[in-house]
Protein backbone atom coordinates (compact mmCIF):
# COMPACT_ATOMS: atom_id res chain seq x y z
CA UNK A 1 0.00 0.00 0.00
CA UNK A 2 2.52 2.62 -1.06
CA UNK A 3 1.58 6.22 -0.55
CA UNK A 4 -0.97 5.41 2.16
CA UNK A 5 -0.21 6.14 5.75
CA UNK A 6 -1.92 6.77 9.00
CA UNK A 7 -1.75 10.34 10.15
CA UNK A 8 -3.35 12.81 12.52
CA UNK A 9 -4.98 15.95 11.12
CA UNK A 10 -2.63 18.24 13.02
CA UNK A 11 0.41 16.30 11.81
CA UNK A 12 -0.89 16.64 8.26
CA UNK A 13 -0.85 20.43 8.71
CA UNK A 14 2.79 20.25 9.81
CA UNK A 15 3.78 17.94 6.94
CA UNK A 16 1.96 20.09 4.42
CA UNK A 17 3.61 23.24 5.76
CA UNK A 18 7.07 21.69 5.57
CA UNK A 19 6.32 20.55 2.03
CA UNK A 20 5.21 24.09 1.17
CA UNK A 21 8.59 25.41 2.30
CA UNK A 22 7.71 26.75 5.74
CA UNK A 23 10.70 28.69 7.16
CA UNK A 24 9.30 30.13 10.37
CA UNK A 25 6.70 29.09 12.91
CA UNK A 26 5.75 31.07 16.01
CA UNK A 27 3.01 29.86 18.28
CA UNK A 28 1.69 29.28 21.74
CA UNK A 29 0.46 25.81 22.70
CA UNK A 30 -3.31 25.35 22.91
CA UNK A 31 -5.59 22.33 22.81
CA UNK A 32 -6.51 21.06 20.22
CA UNK A 33 -3.81 22.67 18.05
CA UNK A 34 -0.64 21.96 20.05
CA UNK A 35 0.41 18.93 17.99
CA UNK A 36 1.23 21.24 15.08
CA UNK A 37 3.86 23.03 17.17
CA UNK A 38 5.12 19.69 18.54
CA UNK A 39 5.45 18.20 15.06
CA UNK A 40 7.33 21.18 13.62
CA UNK A 41 9.99 21.01 16.34
CA UNK A 42 11.06 17.79 14.61
CA UNK A 43 12.38 19.77 11.60
CA UNK A 44 15.20 21.79 13.19
CA UNK A 45 17.20 22.14 9.98
CA UNK A 46 14.25 23.38 7.94
CA UNK A 47 11.89 25.30 10.19
CA UNK A 48 12.74 27.84 12.84
CA UNK A 49 10.22 27.30 15.61
CA UNK A 50 9.61 29.82 18.36
CA UNK A 51 7.32 29.23 21.31
CA UNK A 52 6.16 32.73 22.15
CA UNK A 53 4.70 34.14 25.35
CA UNK A 54 1.22 34.32 23.85
CA UNK A 55 -0.74 34.40 20.61
CA UNK A 56 -0.39 38.17 20.16
CA UNK A 57 3.38 37.81 20.07
CA UNK A 58 3.04 34.79 17.80
CA UNK A 59 1.07 36.53 15.06
CA UNK A 60 3.28 39.60 15.19
CA UNK A 61 6.42 37.47 14.96
CA UNK A 62 4.91 35.81 11.88
CA UNK A 63 4.10 39.17 10.27
CA UNK A 64 7.70 40.23 10.88
CA UNK A 65 9.14 37.02 9.50
CA UNK A 66 6.89 37.25 6.44
CA UNK A 67 8.03 40.79 5.73
CA UNK A 68 11.63 39.64 6.03
CA UNK A 69 10.98 37.15 3.24
CA UNK A 70 10.18 33.97 5.15
CA UNK A 71 7.25 31.64 4.65
CA UNK A 72 5.60 31.95 8.06
CA UNK A 73 2.83 30.14 9.89
CA UNK A 74 1.15 30.08 13.28
CA UNK A 75 -1.41 27.64 14.66
CA UNK A 76 -3.96 28.13 17.40
CA UNK A 77 -7.54 27.55 18.50
CA UNK A 78 -10.48 29.88 19.21
CA UNK A 79 -9.17 31.77 22.27
CA UNK A 80 -5.79 32.31 20.62
CA UNK A 81 -7.39 33.21 17.31
CA UNK A 82 -9.36 35.94 19.10
CA UNK A 83 -6.14 37.35 20.50
CA UNK A 84 -4.55 37.34 17.06
CA UNK A 85 -7.19 39.47 15.37
CA UNK A 86 -5.34 42.77 15.55
CA UNK A 87 -2.18 41.17 14.17
CA UNK A 88 -4.17 39.64 11.33
CA UNK A 89 -5.41 43.11 10.37
CA UNK A 90 -1.81 44.29 10.45
CA UNK A 91 -0.86 41.43 8.13
CA UNK A 92 -3.51 42.51 5.63
CA UNK A 93 -2.48 46.16 5.81
CA UNK A 94 1.24 45.57 5.32
CA UNK A 95 0.55 42.75 2.84
CA UNK A 96 2.39 40.03 4.72
CA UNK A 97 1.91 36.53 3.26
CA UNK A 98 1.43 34.04 6.07
CA UNK A 99 -0.78 31.14 7.12
CA UNK A 100 -2.86 31.04 10.29
CA UNK A 101 -4.22 27.64 11.27
CA UNK A 102 -7.28 27.68 13.52
CA UNK A 103 -8.20 24.29 14.97
CA UNK A 104 -11.63 25.35 16.20
CA UNK A 105 -12.95 24.27 19.58
CA UNK A 106 -16.17 24.89 21.48
CA UNK A 107 -16.48 28.47 22.71
CA UNK A 108 -16.95 31.23 23.67
CA UNK A 109 -13.98 31.71 25.98
CA UNK A 110 -12.35 28.52 27.29
CA UNK A 111 -15.43 26.49 26.31
CA UNK A 112 -14.70 22.81 25.73
CA UNK A 113 -11.02 22.58 24.79
CA UNK A 114 -10.96 19.02 23.47
CA UNK A 115 -14.20 19.20 21.51
CA UNK A 116 -14.48 20.41 17.95
CA UNK A 117 -16.67 23.30 16.81
CA UNK A 118 -17.11 25.69 13.91
CA UNK A 119 -17.69 28.89 15.83
CA UNK A 120 -14.85 30.95 14.34
CA UNK A 121 -16.25 31.38 10.83
CA UNK A 122 -17.37 34.97 11.13
CA UNK A 123 -14.28 35.76 13.18
CA UNK A 124 -12.19 34.63 10.19
CA UNK A 125 -14.04 37.01 7.94
CA UNK A 126 -14.61 40.05 10.13
CA UNK A 127 -12.61 39.49 13.33
CA UNK A 128 -10.21 42.37 12.84
CA UNK A 129 -11.42 45.95 12.47
CA UNK A 130 -11.68 47.70 9.14
CA UNK A 131 -12.16 46.25 5.67
CA UNK A 132 -10.16 43.29 4.52
CA UNK A 133 -10.88 40.29 2.31
CA UNK A 134 -9.32 37.11 3.63
CA UNK A 135 -9.02 33.80 1.85
CA UNK A 136 -10.17 30.98 4.16
CA UNK A 137 -9.84 27.26 3.35
CA UNK A 138 -11.49 24.43 5.30
CA UNK A 139 -10.65 20.79 4.40
CA UNK A 140 -12.54 17.79 5.83
CA UNK A 141 -10.13 14.85 5.84
CA UNK A 142 -6.54 14.24 6.84
CA UNK A 143 -5.50 13.83 3.18
CA UNK A 144 -7.21 17.06 2.26
CA UNK A 145 -5.72 18.91 5.23
CA UNK A 146 -2.28 18.14 3.82
CA UNK A 147 -3.07 19.38 0.32
CA UNK A 148 -5.05 22.43 1.46
CA UNK A 149 -2.19 23.46 3.76
CA UNK A 150 0.02 23.70 0.68
CA UNK A 151 -2.74 25.60 -1.15
CA UNK A 152 -3.01 27.98 1.81
CA UNK A 153 0.70 28.83 1.50
CA UNK A 154 0.35 29.29 -2.24
CA UNK A 155 -2.69 31.54 -1.81
CA UNK A 156 -0.80 33.58 0.79
CA UNK A 157 2.17 34.02 -1.53
CA UNK A 158 -0.01 34.96 -4.48
CA UNK A 159 -2.24 37.35 -2.56
CA UNK A 160 0.48 38.72 -0.25
CA UNK A 161 -1.96 38.39 2.64
CA UNK A 162 -2.68 36.25 5.71
CA UNK A 163 -4.64 33.14 4.70
CA UNK A 164 -6.60 31.17 7.28
CA UNK A 165 -6.63 27.38 7.21
CA UNK A 166 -9.58 26.23 9.30
CA UNK A 167 -9.88 22.80 10.84
CA UNK A 168 -11.65 21.72 14.02
CA UNK A 169 -10.99 19.68 17.14
CA UNK A 170 -12.46 16.58 15.47
CA UNK A 171 -10.27 16.78 12.38
CA UNK A 172 -7.19 18.03 14.21
CA UNK A 173 -7.12 15.02 16.53
CA UNK A 174 -8.45 12.53 13.99
CA UNK A 175 -6.10 9.80 12.82
CA UNK A 176 -7.05 8.18 9.55
CA UNK A 177 -5.64 6.55 6.47
CA UNK A 178 -4.37 9.29 4.24
CA UNK A 179 -2.77 9.79 0.88
CA UNK A 180 -0.53 12.82 0.54
CA UNK A 181 -1.00 14.60 -2.76
CA UNK A 182 1.37 17.44 -3.55
CA UNK A 183 0.66 20.57 -5.57
CA UNK A 184 3.24 22.83 -7.26
CA UNK A 185 4.49 25.68 -5.10
CA UNK A 186 4.11 29.39 -5.85
CA UNK A 187 7.04 31.66 -5.22
CA UNK A 188 6.96 35.20 -3.98
CA UNK A 189 7.73 38.05 -6.32
CA UNK A 190 7.77 40.93 -3.79
CA UNK A 191 11.11 41.84 -2.33
CA UNK A 192 11.63 41.50 1.44
CA UNK A 193 11.94 44.32 3.92
CA UNK A 194 14.90 46.54 3.06
CA UNK A 195 14.70 45.87 -0.67
CA UNK A 196 13.04 48.33 -3.05
CA UNK A 197 10.88 51.26 -2.09
CA UNK A 198 7.82 49.56 -0.68
CA UNK A 199 6.26 51.04 2.45
CA UNK A 200 5.62 48.75 5.37
CA UNK A 201 3.15 50.64 7.50
CA UNK A 202 -0.11 49.87 9.22
CA UNK A 203 -1.33 53.39 8.46
CA UNK A 204 -3.31 53.99 5.30
CA UNK A 205 -0.68 54.43 2.62
CA UNK A 206 -0.70 55.39 -1.04
CA UNK A 207 2.10 54.73 -3.48
CA UNK A 208 5.24 56.04 -1.86
CA UNK A 209 3.31 58.12 0.64
CA UNK A 210 3.41 56.37 4.03
CA UNK A 211 0.65 58.36 5.71
CA UNK A 212 -2.13 59.31 3.34
CA UNK A 213 -4.86 61.33 5.01
CA UNK A 214 -7.37 61.89 2.23
CA UNK A 215 -10.45 59.64 1.89
CA UNK A 216 -9.66 58.84 -1.73
CA UNK A 217 -6.33 57.29 -0.75
CA UNK A 218 -8.06 54.93 1.65
CA UNK A 219 -10.79 54.12 -0.86
CA UNK A 220 -8.16 53.21 -3.42
CA UNK A 221 -6.21 51.11 -0.93
CA UNK A 222 -9.26 49.07 0.09
CA UNK A 223 -10.36 48.64 -3.52
CA UNK A 224 -6.90 47.39 -4.39
CA UNK A 225 -6.87 44.92 -1.48
CA UNK A 226 -10.33 43.64 -2.48
CA UNK A 227 -9.43 43.25 -6.15
CA UNK A 228 -6.15 41.54 -5.30
CA UNK A 229 -7.62 38.85 -3.03
CA UNK A 230 -10.65 38.32 -5.27
CA UNK A 231 -8.37 37.68 -8.23
CA UNK A 232 -6.26 35.18 -6.32
CA UNK A 233 -9.24 33.50 -4.61
CA UNK A 234 -10.72 32.70 -8.02
CA UNK A 235 -7.83 30.29 -8.53
CA UNK A 236 -8.66 28.55 -5.23
CA UNK A 237 -12.40 28.01 -5.79
CA UNK A 238 -12.38 24.54 -4.22
CA UNK A 239 -15.62 22.76 -3.40
CA UNK A 240 -17.23 19.35 -3.53
CA UNK A 241 -20.68 18.95 -5.06
CA UNK A 242 -22.47 15.62 -4.82
CA UNK A 243 -25.74 15.77 -6.74
CA UNK A 244 -28.24 12.94 -6.51
CA UNK A 245 -31.04 12.12 -8.93
CA UNK A 246 -34.46 13.33 -7.86
CA UNK A 247 -33.29 15.11 -4.69
CA UNK A 248 -35.05 18.38 -3.81
CA UNK A 249 -32.85 19.18 -0.81
CA UNK A 250 -29.31 20.51 -0.92
CA UNK A 251 -27.23 20.11 2.24
CA UNK A 252 -24.45 22.63 2.79
CA UNK A 253 -21.76 21.46 5.21
CA UNK A 254 -18.01 21.70 5.68
CA UNK A 255 -15.26 20.35 7.92
CA UNK A 256 -16.20 17.70 10.48
CA UNK A 257 -19.94 18.36 10.03
CA UNK A 258 -19.69 17.44 6.35
CA UNK A 259 -18.33 14.01 7.27
CA UNK A 260 -21.56 13.31 9.16
CA UNK A 261 -23.57 14.84 6.29
CA UNK A 262 -22.10 12.25 3.88
CA UNK A 263 -24.41 9.71 5.53
CA UNK A 264 -27.29 11.39 3.68
CA UNK A 265 -25.74 11.48 0.23
CA UNK A 266 -28.22 8.90 -1.04
CA UNK A 267 -31.25 11.11 -0.41
CA UNK A 268 -29.92 14.69 -0.47
CA UNK A 269 -27.47 16.54 -2.64
CA UNK A 270 -24.44 17.89 -0.79
CA UNK A 271 -22.46 21.04 -1.40
CA UNK A 272 -19.24 21.30 0.59
CA UNK A 273 -17.37 24.56 0.28
CA UNK A 274 -13.64 24.13 0.87
CA UNK A 275 -12.97 27.78 0.18
CA UNK A 276 -15.17 29.20 2.92
CA UNK A 277 -14.26 32.84 2.14
CA UNK A 278 -14.70 34.59 -0.19
CA UNK A 279 -17.97 32.69 -0.46
CA UNK A 280 -18.37 30.58 -3.60
CA UNK A 281 -20.68 32.03 -6.23
CA UNK A 282 -21.07 28.46 -7.48
CA UNK A 283 -23.24 27.76 -4.43
CA UNK A 284 -25.76 30.41 -5.51
CA UNK A 285 -26.02 28.81 -8.91
CA UNK A 286 -26.29 25.23 -7.68
CA UNK A 287 -28.84 26.18 -5.00
CA UNK A 288 -31.25 27.35 -7.73
CA UNK A 289 -31.82 23.73 -8.69
CA UNK A 290 -33.17 22.78 -5.25
CA UNK A 291 -36.41 23.44 -3.47
CA UNK A 292 -34.75 23.43 -0.11
CA UNK A 293 -31.27 24.36 1.11
CA UNK A 294 -30.20 23.21 4.59
CA UNK A 295 -26.99 24.35 6.29
CA UNK A 296 -25.43 21.96 8.82
CA UNK A 297 -22.76 23.57 10.99
CA UNK A 298 -21.25 23.28 14.45
CA UNK A 299 -22.36 26.69 15.73
CA UNK A 300 -25.61 28.51 16.41
CA UNK A 301 -26.01 29.80 12.84
CA UNK A 302 -23.06 31.67 11.32
CA UNK A 303 -22.62 30.41 7.78
CA UNK A 304 -26.39 30.03 7.50
CA UNK A 305 -26.76 33.83 7.64
CA UNK A 306 -24.30 34.23 4.82
CA UNK A 307 -25.79 31.47 2.68
CA UNK A 308 -29.18 33.18 2.98
CA UNK A 309 -27.62 36.46 1.91
CA UNK A 310 -25.87 34.76 -1.00
CA UNK A 311 -28.86 32.87 -2.40
CA UNK A 312 -31.50 35.48 -1.42
CA UNK A 313 -33.94 33.12 0.27
CA UNK A 314 -34.42 31.47 3.67
CA UNK A 315 -32.49 28.27 4.34
CA UNK A 316 -33.04 25.45 6.82
CA UNK A 317 -30.54 25.05 9.59
CA UNK A 318 -29.23 22.17 11.70
CA UNK A 319 -26.89 23.23 14.52
CA UNK A 320 -24.47 20.67 15.99
CA UNK A 321 -23.40 22.13 19.31
CA UNK A 322 -21.14 21.15 22.20
CA UNK A 323 -18.81 18.91 20.23
CA UNK A 324 -21.45 16.40 19.16
CA UNK A 325 -21.36 15.42 15.50
CA UNK A 326 -24.13 12.86 15.46
CA UNK A 327 -25.74 11.48 12.35
CA UNK A 328 -28.96 11.02 14.38
CA UNK A 329 -29.07 14.77 15.12
CA UNK A 330 -28.91 15.55 11.42
CA UNK A 331 -31.67 13.01 10.78
CA UNK A 332 -33.94 14.72 13.32
CA UNK A 333 -33.01 18.16 12.04
CA UNK A 334 -33.79 17.16 8.48
CA UNK A 335 -37.23 15.90 9.49
CA UNK A 336 -37.94 19.23 11.12
CA UNK A 337 -36.75 21.17 8.08
CA UNK A 338 -38.97 19.03 5.81
CA UNK A 339 -42.03 19.70 7.98
CA UNK A 340 -41.37 23.43 8.10
CA UNK A 341 -41.05 23.80 4.36
CA UNK A 342 -44.06 21.72 3.32
Amino acid sequence: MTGRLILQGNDAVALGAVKAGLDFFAGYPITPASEILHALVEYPGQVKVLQMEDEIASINACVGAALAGAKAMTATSGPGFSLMQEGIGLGHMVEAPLVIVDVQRVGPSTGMPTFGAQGDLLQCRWGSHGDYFPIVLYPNSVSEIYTQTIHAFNAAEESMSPVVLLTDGCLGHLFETAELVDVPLKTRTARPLGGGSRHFTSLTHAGDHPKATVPSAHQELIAALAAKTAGVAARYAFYEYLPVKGADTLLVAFGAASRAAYHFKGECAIFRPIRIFPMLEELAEIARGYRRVVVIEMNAGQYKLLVEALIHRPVGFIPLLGGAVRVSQIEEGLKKCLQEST
Partner: protein
Amino acid sequence: MGRVQQERLIIAGFGGQGIMFMGKLLCCAGMLEGRHVTYMPSYGAEVRGGTAYCNVIVSDEEIPSPVVAEPTAAIIMNTPSLIKFEPMLAKKGLIIINSALVDRPAKRRDVEPIHIPATNIADRLGNTRVANMVALGAFLAKRDVVQMQTALAAVEEMLPPYRRHLVEINRQALGEGKSFVESRSADAIWGKITRGFGFG
Protein backbone atom coordinates in the same frame (compact mmCIF):
# COMPACT_ATOMS: atom_id res chain seq x y z
CA MET B 1 -15.31 -16.34 12.59
CA GLY B 2 -15.71 -14.31 9.39
CA ARG B 3 -13.82 -11.19 8.57
CA VAL B 4 -15.62 -8.12 9.98
CA GLN B 5 -16.48 -5.67 7.18
CA GLN B 6 -16.93 -2.67 9.40
CA GLU B 7 -16.23 -2.46 13.11
CA ARG B 8 -17.22 0.64 15.03
CA LEU B 9 -15.47 0.49 18.34
CA ILE B 10 -15.32 2.51 21.54
CA ILE B 11 -12.39 1.96 23.88
CA ALA B 12 -12.76 3.61 27.28
CA GLY B 13 -11.08 3.85 30.65
CA PHE B 14 -9.10 6.40 32.58
CA GLY B 15 -6.00 8.32 31.56
CA GLY B 16 -2.91 6.14 31.92
CA GLN B 17 -4.53 2.81 31.03
CA GLY B 18 -3.26 2.94 27.48
CA ILE B 19 -6.66 3.61 25.95
CA MET B 20 -5.25 5.79 23.18
CA PHE B 21 -2.47 3.29 22.50
CA MET B 22 -5.05 0.56 21.91
CA GLY B 23 -6.94 2.78 19.48
CA LYS B 24 -3.84 3.79 17.59
CA LEU B 25 -2.64 0.20 17.48
CA LEU B 26 -5.87 -1.07 15.93
CA CYS B 27 -5.75 1.80 13.50
CA CYS B 28 -2.16 1.05 12.53
CA ALA B 29 -2.87 -2.67 12.18
CA GLY B 30 -5.92 -1.94 10.04
CA MET B 31 -3.84 0.22 7.76
CA LEU B 32 -1.15 -2.48 7.49
CA GLU B 33 -3.91 -4.78 6.21
CA GLY B 34 -4.89 -2.19 3.62
CA ARG B 35 -8.22 -1.21 5.18
CA HIS B 36 -9.77 2.18 5.84
CA VAL B 37 -9.37 3.31 9.42
CA THR B 38 -10.23 6.28 11.60
CA TYR B 39 -9.24 6.85 15.20
CA MET B 40 -10.58 9.79 17.15
CA PRO B 41 -9.37 10.35 20.71
CA SER B 42 -11.35 12.14 23.39
CA TYR B 43 -9.87 13.18 26.68
CA GLY B 44 -9.95 16.04 29.14
CA ALA B 45 -7.45 18.84 28.62
CA GLU B 46 -6.90 19.64 32.27
CA VAL B 47 -7.45 16.38 34.16
CA ARG B 48 -4.96 13.53 34.28
CA GLY B 49 -6.53 10.27 35.39
CA GLY B 50 -9.88 11.50 34.11
CA THR B 51 -12.07 9.69 31.61
CA ALA B 52 -10.37 8.87 28.35
CA TYR B 53 -11.97 7.18 25.39
CA CYS B 54 -11.52 6.84 21.69
CA ASN B 55 -13.60 6.04 18.62
CA VAL B 56 -12.11 3.56 16.17
CA ILE B 57 -13.59 2.50 12.84
CA VAL B 58 -12.00 -0.20 10.69
CA SER B 59 -13.78 -0.68 7.40
CA ASP B 60 -13.50 -2.14 3.92
CA GLU B 61 -14.99 1.08 2.58
CA GLU B 62 -14.22 4.76 2.93
CA ILE B 63 -15.44 6.09 6.28
CA PRO B 64 -17.80 9.09 6.21
CA SER B 65 -18.06 10.22 9.84
CA PRO B 66 -15.36 9.09 12.25
CA VAL B 67 -17.72 9.59 15.20
CA VAL B 68 -19.03 6.35 16.71
CA ALA B 69 -22.57 6.86 18.03
CA GLU B 70 -23.69 3.22 18.06
CA PRO B 71 -20.64 1.01 18.58
CA THR B 72 -20.61 -2.56 17.33
CA ALA B 73 -18.06 -3.32 20.03
CA ALA B 74 -16.66 -1.72 23.19
CA ILE B 75 -13.61 -2.33 25.35
CA ILE B 76 -14.37 -1.10 28.86
CA MET B 77 -11.47 -0.70 31.28
CA ASN B 78 -13.18 0.93 34.30
CA THR B 79 -16.62 1.30 35.92
CA PRO B 80 -17.51 4.86 34.81
CA SER B 81 -16.91 3.80 31.21
CA LEU B 82 -19.31 0.87 31.55
CA ILE B 83 -22.02 3.18 32.89
CA LYS B 84 -21.46 5.64 30.05
CA PHE B 85 -21.07 3.35 27.07
CA GLU B 86 -23.06 0.17 27.73
CA PRO B 87 -26.37 1.85 26.80
CA MET B 88 -24.89 3.09 23.51
CA LEU B 89 -23.82 -0.33 22.27
CA ALA B 90 -25.60 -1.71 19.20
CA LYS B 91 -27.75 -4.83 19.64
CA LYS B 92 -25.65 -8.00 19.62
CA GLY B 93 -22.63 -5.80 20.15
CA LEU B 94 -19.53 -7.19 21.82
CA ILE B 95 -18.50 -5.70 25.16
CA ILE B 96 -15.13 -6.59 26.67
CA ILE B 97 -15.13 -5.69 30.37
CA ASN B 98 -12.02 -5.48 32.53
CA SER B 99 -13.61 -7.31 35.47
CA ALA B 100 -10.56 -6.62 37.67
CA LEU B 101 -11.52 -2.94 37.90
CA VAL B 102 -15.19 -2.89 36.91
CA ASP B 103 -17.42 -3.60 39.87
CA ARG B 104 -20.42 -5.01 38.04
CA PRO B 105 -21.16 -7.17 35.04
CA ALA B 106 -22.91 -5.94 31.89
CA LYS B 107 -26.61 -5.26 32.48
CA ARG B 108 -27.93 -5.61 28.97
CA ARG B 109 -29.08 -9.01 27.80
CA ASP B 110 -29.00 -8.17 24.09
CA VAL B 111 -25.23 -7.76 23.92
CA GLU B 112 -22.36 -10.22 24.15
CA PRO B 113 -20.24 -9.58 27.25
CA ILE B 114 -16.75 -10.93 27.91
CA HIS B 115 -15.63 -10.38 31.48
CA ILE B 116 -11.88 -10.63 31.67
CA PRO B 117 -9.73 -9.65 34.67
CA ALA B 118 -7.27 -7.90 32.36
CA THR B 119 -5.47 -5.95 35.07
CA ASN B 120 -4.94 -9.10 37.20
CA ILE B 121 -3.62 -11.02 34.21
CA ALA B 122 -1.25 -8.14 33.40
CA ASP B 123 -0.05 -8.09 37.02
CA ARG B 124 0.69 -11.78 36.79
CA LEU B 125 2.75 -11.11 33.66
CA GLY B 126 4.72 -8.59 35.69
CA ASN B 127 3.53 -5.26 34.29
CA THR B 128 0.12 -3.85 35.15
CA ARG B 129 0.36 -1.47 32.22
CA VAL B 130 -0.19 -4.20 29.64
CA ALA B 131 -3.78 -4.74 30.84
CA ASN B 132 -4.81 -2.89 27.69
CA MET B 133 -3.11 -5.49 25.50
CA VAL B 134 -4.78 -8.33 27.43
CA ALA B 135 -8.18 -6.75 26.73
CA LEU B 136 -7.25 -6.16 23.10
CA GLY B 137 -6.18 -9.80 22.77
CA ALA B 138 -9.61 -10.84 24.07
CA PHE B 139 -11.29 -8.52 21.58
CA LEU B 140 -9.30 -9.84 18.64
CA ALA B 141 -10.08 -13.41 19.65
CA LYS B 142 -13.79 -12.60 19.28
CA ARG B 143 -13.71 -10.33 16.25
CA ASP B 144 -11.64 -10.79 13.13
CA VAL B 145 -11.01 -7.08 12.64
CA VAL B 146 -7.28 -7.52 12.11
CA GLN B 147 -5.02 -10.55 12.36
CA MET B 148 -3.27 -11.09 15.69
CA GLN B 149 0.10 -11.08 13.92
CA THR B 150 -0.70 -7.75 12.29
CA ALA B 151 -1.51 -6.34 15.72
CA LEU B 152 1.90 -7.55 16.85
CA ALA B 153 3.58 -5.95 13.85
CA ALA B 154 1.78 -2.72 14.76
CA VAL B 155 3.10 -2.92 18.34
CA GLU B 156 6.62 -3.19 16.97
CA GLU B 157 6.05 -0.28 14.65
CA MET B 158 4.55 1.95 17.32
CA LEU B 159 6.89 1.41 20.24
CA PRO B 160 9.77 3.92 20.16
CA PRO B 161 13.33 2.49 20.15
CA TYR B 162 13.82 3.04 23.90
CA ARG B 163 10.76 0.90 24.59
CA ARG B 164 11.77 -1.93 22.27
CA HIS B 165 12.26 -4.26 25.24
CA LEU B 166 8.50 -4.08 25.92
CA VAL B 167 7.53 -5.77 22.64
CA GLU B 168 7.79 -9.22 24.25
CA ILE B 169 5.50 -8.53 27.20
CA ASN B 170 2.97 -6.89 24.89
CA ARG B 171 3.04 -10.04 22.75
CA GLN B 172 2.48 -12.18 25.84
CA ALA B 173 -0.39 -9.96 26.99
CA LEU B 174 -2.17 -10.16 23.63
CA GLY B 175 -1.75 -13.95 23.74
CA GLU B 176 -3.09 -14.20 27.31
CA GLY B 177 -6.20 -12.24 26.39
CA LYS B 178 -6.77 -14.44 23.37
CA SER B 179 -6.37 -17.73 25.23
CA PHE B 180 -8.58 -16.47 28.05
CA VAL B 181 -11.44 -16.03 25.63
CA GLU B 182 -10.71 -19.25 23.82
CA SER B 183 -10.89 -21.23 27.05
CA ARG B 184 -13.88 -19.15 28.16
CA SER B 185 -14.32 -21.27 31.25
CA ALA B 186 -13.48 -18.57 33.72
CA ASP B 187 -15.96 -16.19 32.19
CA ALA B 188 -18.74 -18.75 32.22
CA ILE B 189 -18.22 -19.37 35.92
CA TRP B 190 -18.04 -15.64 36.63
CA GLY B 191 -21.29 -15.15 34.74
CA LYS B 192 -23.03 -17.95 36.67
CA ILE B 193 -22.01 -16.52 40.00
CA THR B 194 -22.96 -12.94 39.27
CA ARG B 195 -25.95 -13.30 37.01
CA GLY B 196 -27.31 -16.75 37.62
CA PHE B 197 -26.89 -17.95 34.09
CA GLY B 198 -24.06 -19.32 32.01
CA PHE B 199 -22.34 -17.28 29.41
CA GLY B 200 -23.30 -18.57 25.99
